[in-house]
């Protein structure tokens, strides 16, 4: 922990361009014991405001440890960390406002539901963060539940335990979204969902990112979903940042990706193959449709194919 009072605030933080700046962040679990385990090693990275960043890596590479730093669930041991305008390596941090502004969705968030009704559960966070007006709370909860595609009037008085797995997850997500966070941190939000459930959650997150300007940091094991949705991918390897680049650039290094026990997304494979065949696919073409259009354009327009 940096003990000096004079903290050098990174330029990007000072002018509000960056949402998250980590500078040589280190973290060791159970230090000074036979179980000690260094989970983060000199992690240095920046996430800009409004960006959608994905964090990937083999299991045990420190992704969860890193993202839990972002709202001070894990306190900084060593190194610098700035989130919005909070200096998390400082001794005292205003946790309450920080956690209201950095929404955290855990893996299997449905396991944290507890209240009698869906409405109460979604309101839990709001209550804690000081929205004292009951009507305002219910309004925010309604917005959030509708945002995640739930029928508010139908579910508000139901017990959260009577919902299906996918619905539970959406309610849990709504509980975080209701606080209208500026940064949304998600640890494998789609784990254990069916393909349709996955797509719905992803398109929801993507649209929150695009339309509300919420910065998104998402940990995921599914390279396909990461490839299509993220602006940038950060690869963790044994606690270190191994790569930090755009999806297209990253998956051009096929051999290196495979050697890190990660898979290549289908579309990336396809684009790589096309490029080997001599087609030049622009960097921002990621979906089937975009690539299709790009190839068509190269071939000289519709109807020529």
């Amino acid at each position, binding site marked *: 922990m940096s003990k000096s009072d004079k903290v050098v605030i990174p330029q990007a933080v000072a002018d509000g361009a960056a949402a998250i700046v980590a500078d040589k962040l280190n973290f060791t679990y*159970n230090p000074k014991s*036979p179980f000690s385990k260094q989970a983060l090693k000199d992690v240095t990275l920046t996430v800009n405001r409004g960006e959608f960043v994905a964090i990937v890596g083999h299991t045990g590479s420190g992704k969860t440890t890193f993202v*839990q730093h972002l*709202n001070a*669930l894990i306190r900084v041991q060593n190194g610098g960390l700035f989130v919005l305008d909070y200096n998390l390596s400082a001794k005292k941090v205003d946790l*309450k406002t920080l*956690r*209201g502004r950095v*929404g*955290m969705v*855990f893996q299997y*968030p449905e*396991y*944290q*539901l*507890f*209240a009698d009704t869906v409405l109460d559960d979604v309101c*839990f*966070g709001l*209550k*804690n*963060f000081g929205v004292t007006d009951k009507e305002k709370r219910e309004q925010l909860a309604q917005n959030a539940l509708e945002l995640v595609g739930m029928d508010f009037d139908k579910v508000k008085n139901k017990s959260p*335990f009577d919902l299906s797995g996918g619905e539970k997850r959406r309610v849990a997500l709504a*509980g*975080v979204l209701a*606080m209208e966070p500026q940064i949304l941190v998600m640890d494998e939000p789609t784990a254990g969902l069916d393909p349709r459930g996955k797509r719905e959650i992803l398109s929801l997150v993507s649209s929150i990112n695009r339309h509300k300007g919420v910065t998104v940091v998402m940990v995921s094991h599914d390279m396909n979903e990461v490839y299509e949705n993220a602006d940038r991918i950060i690869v963790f390897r044994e606690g270190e940042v191994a790569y930090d680049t755009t999806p297209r650039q990253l998956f051009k290094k096929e051999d290196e990706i495979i050697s890190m026990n990660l898979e290549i997304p289908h579309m990336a494979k396809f684009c790589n193959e096309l490029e080997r065949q001599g087609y030049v696919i622009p960097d921002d073409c990621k979906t089937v449709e975009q690539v299709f259009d790009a190839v068509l354009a190269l071939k000289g327009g519709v109807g020529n194919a």
Partner: protein
Amino acid sequence: MLKDVTFGQYYPADSFIHRMDARVKLLLCLLFMVGIFFVTSFAGFAFITVFLITLIASSRIPLRSILKSVKGIIVLLLLTVILNIFFTKTGTLLCKWWIFEIYDGGLYFAAKMFLRLTYLVVGSSVLTLTTTPVDLTHAIESLLKPLKVIKVPVHEIALIMSLTLSLIPGLIDETDRIIRAQKARGANFDTGGLVKRVKAFVPILIPLLVGGFRRAEELANAMNSRCYEGSNKRTQMRIMKLSWRDFVATFIALLFFVTVFVVYGMQSKWATADVGWLYINGVNWLYF
């Protein structure tokens, strides 16, 4: 955070004590615990101290881990000491203030109870620090086997114990996870009055219970679908065998306890029997 609880936690190392048979360790530990109540003189405690120091040194467990488990009962220790000091009215009055009277007998009792409790915890934590919980349950099962004759479901009891033990780390993890998740939603467990604090645990307890039942059901299903049956025909995967270590350790321990018992236990028992013996006898160098 929650994992910091050392009491009953295995400390991996390779030592004489670690390699001993869990059954022998368990029996010797019980012997130690019973034995310590027979020690009534400070000379006896000094002897025990030497024994414990040797034991800890040969187990290669850092003193820090052991002290941590003593820290776990610090409240109990303080309470015992305080109660003994103020409520024992034997020996001579040393000082008096308002309704409080301190007798020298009280000081002695307090000191002895303090040592006794501390050594109990130290002794048992040497056992739990050098033995994995799984080995411990096997040892208990093996030692209770004779009870099968009188129809005690020994195997089932051992199964329940080992299942419980195997679920504890998972539950701790889960609790940790839920606490974090609710903290992320602004839950506050550290401030407020008593009612508020108790209330703050509802968001932890309910998911924990729901998760606990879910796990139990999954486990039951997994066991059923593999046709688990706690019959006599089951064999152990790990067979426990006594080795020369166990005989050596038993021999040393028995020798030690017999000495303590005969020399310091029996004699000082009648020595303390007459109240205020210190004055009657003058300074007694053996039991001082």
